[in-house]
Structures are given as C-alpha cells and as structure tokens.
C-alpha cells in the first residue's frame, strides 16, 4: 500500500471529483463527506510519503511501470515531500472550515463547488509530485482552470477579475510550455532528472538561456511576482471566502516550489547562480516586490484586499530568498513556503468567518469585533503576530533565515526590505486590531443600543475549531523549526549551495 502513495495522492482526489459531481445530482449532502474522505486519503498519503522519504531518501515512482525517461515518473524528495504535506493539510483544513460558508454563500451550487475544489487540489498535488516537465504543464492548467471557476463564483465583480486572471494565467502557463519546448529541442527529453543530466555541456547555448528565462517569466506571472502581480488582488478579493482561503495560501506557494524545482533540479544551482549572472538583479526585483506590496497594502481600507497585497509582498520574500544563492536564503525560502501557507490560511479563514457573520470586510465593519467574535479574533492575533514575525510563531524563524541569508550574501537592501515590510505589517495589523478592539460595534440595522455590552456572536464551531488548529500549528511549527530544518530542508538543498 505505502508503495502506491505517490499515485494515490493524485488518483484518489481526481476520481473523487468525478464521483462528487455525480453525487451532487443525487443528493447535495453527499458531496461534503466524499470530498473530506478524498482529501483525507490524500493528506494521509502525503504524510506517509514524507515519513518514507525521511527513512529511505528519494522515492521514484514509475507510472504504469514505464521506465523514465520514456515513461512519466514521480520523484519525491525532501523538498516536495514537505510541500505535499503542506498542500494537502491546508486544503483539508480549509475544506472542513469552509463547509458552513459554502452552504451559506451558494446553496444551489454545492456539488459543482466541491468538484472544482477537489480537482484543484488534485492539480496542485500533481504539480508538486511530478517529475516530468510537460506533465507539470498539464497539471498546472488543471489547477488554473478550476481556480478560475472557483474565483468567479464570488461577488459581482468576481467574473471580470477571474477573466483577467485567466488572461494572465494562460500567458504564464504558455510561457512555461514554450520554455519546456526549447528544453526539449536541445535535450530531447521531458524528464526533469534526465534534462538535468543532459544539460551541463549545453549551458552556454542560447536556447538553454532562452528556455530558462521564458520558464521563469511564466512561473513569475503565475505566482504574481511584483510587476506581474496585477491580476491577483481583485481576483482574490471578490472570490467566495472558501475559494480565496484555498487559493491564496496554496497557488502562489506551489509556484514558488516550481521555481525552486527548476532552479535546483532541472537547471542546476551552478547554472542558476554562476553561469547566469542574474541572481543579483532578481533579488533587486524581489526588493521592489516587497516594498511595493507593503506600500500598496497600506493604502487599502479593506481587510481582504489588504491581505492580497501582503501575499504579493510575501512572494517577494521567497523569490528573493531563493535567489540569494546561499544555503540560509534557500532554507528561508523553503521554510517560508510552509509558514506562509499556514499564516495566509489563518488570516483568510478569519476573513471568511468575518464575512460569514457580518457580510462585509471593510475596515469599518470590523469595529468591536474582539467583543463580538473573541475566538476568531484571538486566532487572528496569532496569525498577525506570525506575519509580523514575533518570536514564538513560525513567521519569525523563516524571516530569521531569510535575513541571515541576506547578511551572508551581503545584500543589505534585501535585508532592509524585509525589516521594512515587517514594520509595515505591524502598522497594518495594529491598525486593524485598534479598530476591532477599541471602537464600539455599530450594527447597521439597530439604533440606540450603544450602551449595552455587545453579546458574543461567534462563527459556528466547525469554522472556529479548524481556525484554532491552524493558529496552534503556527506556534507549533515555530517551536519545531530547528527539527524541520535539520531533518527535512537541509536535505532538500543540494550540496553545491553553501
């Protein structure tokens, strides 16, 4: 059984998506249990797979028994083992947390929503597990197409925002495909490990350079790296809360994983950092991404939109860390994939709870929330402290590694940008805490009841409990950071990077 984990984690959600679609016609209440079971199996396989990788090292799974490079192979090493666990667990927690809000926001579309949800998770898990460059493109498009559908189910402006995302996402995926085409022309192979084996004598070739640049631009478009971020804020803001809390934590992080995979496995670190002299300028781009993300977040008076700009800034952290070209920076980037997925999930789940209760997410709606929804807001505080980077939470540790990497690379501006962004995050979030904690709650419908204390009106238990699990995970991952780094991430980075 454990031999088949790599296939199960893609096949089970894929087939379940079809079953959910059918079950939705029979009885809508069947959809949720099937989706939970499917993602539960996927999460179980991912965790089992990571444990096996820790024991045995890299696992190669040949689909259909065909040997690579002819057949498609799934490679699972420490890097994608870790990302697989994050993706599957985040998707499962969010699914359980969002049940009520899905029932409330579109009661007549429950079947299609769960189908798209599970298909999207299939795509994301497939992107992470596959070892074939073209297979990755197909799964990328599965995740993207379902994502457009999920995002477009939101408010009035959602379809237009999703359409804009679709244009940009398609260009991004096509660029990646084009880059893979050039790689195929020069190497005659689509298997990532095989390409890496054939490439070294060809590093001076212009086609390889072109392939690398085109792939990178495509991946950056998909992850909303700063000048290419324009699609993200609107698409995520107007989406239904269940969709935005799935897509915001996972899609950008999975694309960061793809970038790191391209840098470390397909093109070796020697090519990325030594043959190409671009790492310095990419770190500069990351600096601009961080600073602009922070400034744009400052100008928003709307919780969800502000969070989306923070996502843009966080992408800058990880791209910059990965391109610093040293071990600490790369460790920080990989660790931040884990931490940022959890942090973003935490704050977007809070936004989901607020939308569920208040039907709004502008700053003015948040008044008196600490009294009205104390449990949600406590979890929010933990998520916020992690985003700012306060020590016991995990956000501190990845930022610590990133800053360490910046110091070792003597890239002071990147370090400055990280500190600036932490500072801005503190301003942003304490502004919200001030509104939610000190200003009295004003109900739009009732008048003249200002003096009596506001009764607690918390979101349902099924939304609060997963949120608290995530908030607890932020602290627990923070405490066990050194274990994660020494047991997993250390082996994910090749020896060549010092």
């Amino acid at each position: 059984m454990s031999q088949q984990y790599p296939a199960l984690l893609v096949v089970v959600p894929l087939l379940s998506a079809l079953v959910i679609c059918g079950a939705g016609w029979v009885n809508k209440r069947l959809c949720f249990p099937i989706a939970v079971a499917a993602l539960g199996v996927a999460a179980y396989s991912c965790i089992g797979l990571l444990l096996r990788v820790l024991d045995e090292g890299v696992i190669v799974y040949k689909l259909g028994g065909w040997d690579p490079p002819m057949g498609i192979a799934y490679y699972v090493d420490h890097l994608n083992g870790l990302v697989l666990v994050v993706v599957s667990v985040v998707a499962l927690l969010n699914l359980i947390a969002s049940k009520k809000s899905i029932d409330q926001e579109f009661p007549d579309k429950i079947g299609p929503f769960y189908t798209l949800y599970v298909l999207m998770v299939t795509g994301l898990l497939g992107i992470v597990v596959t070892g074939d460059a073209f297979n990755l493109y197909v799964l990328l498009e599965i995740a993207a197409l379902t994502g457009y559908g999920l995002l477009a189910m939101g408010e009035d402006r959602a379809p237009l925002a999703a359409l804009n995302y679709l244009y940009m996402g398609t260009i991004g995926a096509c660029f990646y495909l084009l880059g893979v085409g050039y790689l195929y022309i020069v190497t005659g192979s689509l298997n990532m490990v095989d390409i890496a084996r054939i490439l070294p004598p060809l590093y001076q070739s212009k086609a390889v350079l072109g392939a690398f640049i085109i792939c990178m631009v495509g991946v950056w478009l998909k992850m909303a790296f700063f000048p290419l971020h324009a699609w993200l804020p609107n698409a995520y803001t107007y989406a239904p809360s269940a969709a935005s809390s799935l897509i915001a934590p996972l899609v950008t992080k999975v694309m960061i994983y793809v970038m790191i995979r391209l840098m470390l496995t397909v093109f070796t670190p020697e090519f990325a950092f030594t043959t190409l002299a671009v790492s310095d300028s990419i770190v500069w781009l990351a600096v601009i991404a961080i600073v602009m993300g922070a400034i744009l977040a400052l100008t928003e008076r709307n919780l969800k939109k502000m969070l989306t700009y923070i996502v843009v800034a966080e992408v800058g952290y990880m791209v910059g860390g990965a391109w610093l070209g040293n071990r600490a920076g790369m460790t920080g980037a990989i660790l931040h994939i884990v931490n940022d997925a959890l942090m973003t999930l935490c704050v977007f789940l809070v936004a989901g709870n607020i939308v569920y209760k208040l039907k709004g997410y502008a700053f003015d709606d948040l008044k008196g929330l600490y009294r009205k929804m104390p449990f949600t807001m406590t979890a929010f505080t933990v998520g916020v402290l992690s985003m700012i980077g306060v020590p016991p939470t995990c956000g501190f540790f990845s930022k610590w590694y990133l800053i360490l990497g910046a110091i070792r690379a003597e890239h002071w501006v990147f370090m400055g940008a990280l500190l600036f962004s932490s500072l801005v995050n503190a301003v942003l979030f304490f502004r919200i805490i001030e509104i939610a904690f000190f200003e009295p709650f004003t109900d739009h419908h009732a008048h003249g009841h200002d003096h009596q204390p506001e009764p607690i009106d918390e979101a349902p238990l099924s939304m609060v409990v997963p949120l608290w699990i995530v908030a607890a995970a932020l602290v627990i991952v923070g405490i066990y950071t050194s274990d994660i780094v020494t047991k997993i991430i250390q082996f994910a980075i090749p020896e060549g990077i010092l």
Partner: protein
Amino acid sequence: MSDLMQMLVAKYNYWIYITLMMIGLYAMIAKNNLVKKIVGMSIFQTAIILFYVSTGAKKGATIPIIEHGHGAETHVVHAVDYINPLPHVLMLTAIVVAVATLGVALALAIRVYNRYNTLEEDEILAQIREK
C-alpha cells in the same frame, strides 16, 4: 543582408510562430472587447502549438507509421526517415487544454455580459467606477 535573409528563411517556422504569438499578445493587451481579447489568447496558444509541431519536422521524412510492422523483424527502422511524433502527441494534450481554457473564458465573458450588459472593457470599468 544576405545573412539576415538566410536566417529568416532557414528558421522560418520560428519567425511565423513568434509573429503569431505577438499578434495574440497585442490583441490581449490592446483590444477593448473581451471576446477579442479571448480570440487573441487563442491565437497565442495556437502559436505555441505550431512551434511544437514544427520542431518535430525533418527534411525528407515521412509520417511516423512503420510499414510492414508485423512479422518484419529483419526490417531496419531509420529514425531519420520519420518525423518525430512526440511533439505532436504533446500538442494533442495542449489543444485539449486550449479548448478548455477557451470554454472557461467564454463562460466568464457571458457572466460579465449578464452583469454589465456590455463586453467593452471601458464601459464596464465606467460602470464599476460609478458605483
């Protein structure tokens, strides 16, 4: 000058795909109508399909079907005589993806039209600003 001509003629398939791709990109950026943008996106994707398919071609080669395939163990197959089928097979998948993307895009455009009663982007933005 003759060098340039030679480069253009020898690699004409690349020049065609780049031209097509730029036409598609131009339409996506510059056109005001949402459906025209979607058409541009489709051209963009088709350009890449053309690129892949053209890379499989070889001079003087034929379609990759082996004659007398059965019971012809003594028959030697020269790879040079057949065009490379793999890019074509990959593009079957890419075409499916392109069709799916087009479908989703048009469905979203219908949703936008139902909401704003127009497909012109400037008019939609004006309506959003009014609110």
